[in-house]
C-alpha cells in the first residue's frame, strides 16, 4: 500500500493519565469519534472515555477451544477405532474416557493460540509502520511515561485550526501534527 499523503491527525501529549482521560472525555463530548489514546500501560478509564468496551478476543478464544476439543476427539476416535485398532486386554476400541485427556489438552492449546493470535490479528499487528511514530516526541515517551491523545484527520469534525485550538485548552505538554 503506497503511503498516503497529508495529515494523519493531531497528537496531544500529557504528563498524567488523569489529564489524558479528561481530554478524551471532552473530545468525545465535543463530537470527535475517530481518536485514539496511547499509554505506556493499560488505562481502563481511557477506554471508557473512548467508549470502547467490547472486544472479540473471548469469542475467538471460545471458537478455538471448541475447534481443539472436536479435532482432538475425532482424531483419537478415528485413529484408535478405524485407522489402527489395537486390542489391548479386551478394552473397547472406543475408549472415550481415555480420549478425553488429550482432547482436553488440545482444547487449551487451540484456545490459547486463538486468544493470543486473535488478539494480535484484531489489533492489526504486526504493523511496523504507523503514522504516530512520525511524531518527534512519540517514541520518547509513549512506551515510557507519557500519555498521548490523537484526534485523527479522517474524523468529519476534524479541522486543523479548530481541533488544535480545542486540544490546546487542556494542559497538554505539546500538540503536534502527525503526517502519514
Amino acid at each position, binding site marked *: 500500500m503506497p503511503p498516503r499523503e497529508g495529515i494523519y491527525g493531531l497528537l496531544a501529549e500529557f*504528563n*498524567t*493519565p*488523569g*489529564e489524558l*482521560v*479528561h481530554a478524551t472525555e471532552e473530545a468525545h463530548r465535543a463530537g470527535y469519534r475517530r481518536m*485514539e*489514546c*496511547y*499509554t*505506556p*500501560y*493499560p*488505562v*481502563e*478509564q481511557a*477506554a471508557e472515555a*473512548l467508549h*470502547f468496551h467490547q*472486544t472479540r*478476543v*473471548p469469542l475467538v*478464544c471460545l471458537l478455538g477451544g471448541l475447534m481443539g476439543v472436536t479435532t*482432538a476427539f475425532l482424531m483419537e476416535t478415528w*485413529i484408535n477405532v478405524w*485407522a*489402527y485398532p489395537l486390542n*489391548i486386554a479386551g*478394552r473397547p476400541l472406543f*475408549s472415550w474416557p*481415555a*480420549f478425553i*485427556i*488429550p482432547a*482436553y*489438552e*488440545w482444547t*487449551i*492449546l487451540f*484456545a*490459547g*493460540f486463538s*486468544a*493470543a493470535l486473535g*488478539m494480535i490479528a*484484531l*489489533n492489526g*499487528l504486526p*504493523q*511496523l*509502520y*504507523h503514522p504516530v*511514530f512520525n511524531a518527534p516526541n512519540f*517514541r520518547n515517551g*509513549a*512506551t*515510557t*511515561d507519557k500519555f498521548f491523545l490523537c484526534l485523527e484527520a479522517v474524523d468529519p469534525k476534524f479541522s486543523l485550526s479548530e481541533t488544535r485550538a480545542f486540544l490546546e485548552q*487542556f494542559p497538554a505538554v505539546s500538540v503536534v501534527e502527525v503526517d502519514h
Partner: protein
Amino acid sequence: MATKGPMQDPSVDPVIDPMIDPRTGEYAVIAPGHNFKSVTQKIAGIVLTSNTPLGWFFGLIVAAGVTMGLVIGCTWLFLKGVGIWGVTIPGAWGFAIINFVWWIGIGHAGTLISAILLLFKQTWRNSINRFAEAMTIFAVVCAGTFPLIHVGRPWLAYWLFPYPNTMNVWPQFRSPLAWDVFAVSTYASISIIFWYIGMIPDFGTLRDRATMPAAKYFYGMLSLGWRGSTRHWIRYESASLLLAGLSTPLVLSVHTVISFDFAVAALAGWHTTIFPPYFVAGAVYSGFAMVLTLAIPIRKFYHMEDLVTLRHLDNMAKVMLATGSIVAYGYGMEVFMAWYSASHWEFFMMWNRMFGPMGWAYWILILTNIAIPLTTLWSRKLRVNVTFLFILSLIVNTGMWFERFVIVVTSLYREYLPSSWGTYRATKWDYMIYVGTMGLFTFLFFLFVRFLPMIPMSEIRMMLPQTKVTPGGANAETISQEES
C-alpha cells in the same frame, strides 16, 4: 494481611526502613520514590547497556561448560544406547523419569505465578512473573529432553506424535505416555506464547529506548509495532486474562497427567488416588523453591532490591509453606493407606521404602522436604532472611528430587515377586546428563536476563501511585500533596 512484630506500631518503632509501610508494618511491593521513568530505566538499562557486567560472562561460560556434560552424555548415549545408564530390569525407570518429573515440576511455579495469581489479582506477582515464566520454559526444555532421549532410539521420538506416515502406525491413546506427549507439548507451547505476549509492550519500550541500530531492529521486530494504543491494550488485557484462565487448569492437568504415568500402573506405591493433587502440590513447592534460587542472586547482582522486595520473598515462602504442608499430608497419607488398606504389598512397599536398602533416600527426603522447611518457614524473621531462604530453596529442590527418586526407584526394584527383585544404581552417565541439564537451564537463563526484560515494565508501571486517574484530570502529584 497484617503482620505481627515490633514494626507494626510506628510510635514505638519509628520507621527506620523505608521499605516498611508505617500503616501496615508490611514490606512494600515497590520501594518508594519510583516513577514511570525510573522503573523503565532500571529494567531497560540491564538489557540495553553496552557495558555487560563481567560476572555475566563468567556465569555464562561456567554454565556453558556444565552444559557440555549434557552434550557429551547425549552423544555417548546415542552411540551406545541406554545401556550406559543404570536402568535395567526391574529398575527400568531411572534418572530419566526422575529428572523429567523433577524438571517439569519446577516449571509449575512460573505458570502459577503468571496465571493463578493474576486471576486472584495478586499484584505482587508483577515483579517476579517474567523470570518465573522464563524459568518455566527453560525447565520444560530440560524436562522434555529426558523423554526424548530415553525412548531408546531418540531419532524416532517423533513417532510419539500423531502424523500420517507410510507405515500407517498411529499412537495409542489409551496409554498415559501418549497423554504425556499432549500435556507436555501443550504446556510448552502455551507457556511460550504467554511469555511472548507478555513481553510485546516491553519490546516496544526497548525498541524506543535502544540506541544501537541492531538492538532497535531486533526489539522492533519482536514488538510487532506495538504502540500502546488503548484499544490494543484492552484486547491485550483480555487475551492475557484468557491465557491465564486457560493456563490455570493446564498447569494442574500437566502434573496430574504425569502422575497418571505412575497411577495407572498396577504397582504398590504407584496406583494411589492421591497422586494427582500430591504431585501438583509438590511441583508448586519445588517451583517456588527454584524461583527463590534464581530471584535471590539476581536481585542482588542487578540491585533489584527495590522491585523484588522482601515482601515478594516472604510471600513466596508462605506459598512454599502451604504447598509443603500439602506434600507432607501426601506422605502421611501414603503411610496411612499402606497400613489401613491392609494390603500386604502396600505395607511391604512402605516398610521397604523406609527401612530397606534405599531407606536413606526416604529419610533424606523427609529431612529436606518436610523437617527443615516446615519447621522454619513459620518464622517471619527467617522468611525475610535472604541468605536463609536461598539455602532453604536449595534444600527443598534437593528434597523434591529425592521425592521423585523414592517414588520411582523404591516401588520398582522390589515389586511383587521376590525372585525378580533387583536394585538400581545410577551410572556416571546418568549424573553427567542430569548435571548437564542444570547447566543448560542456567545457560538459557543467563541469556534471558541479558537480552530480554526480566521484570515486566508495563505491569510494574500499573502499580505505581502515579497511575491514579483523578476526575477532571488534576495532576496526581498535586493531589497526593493536598492529601498529606
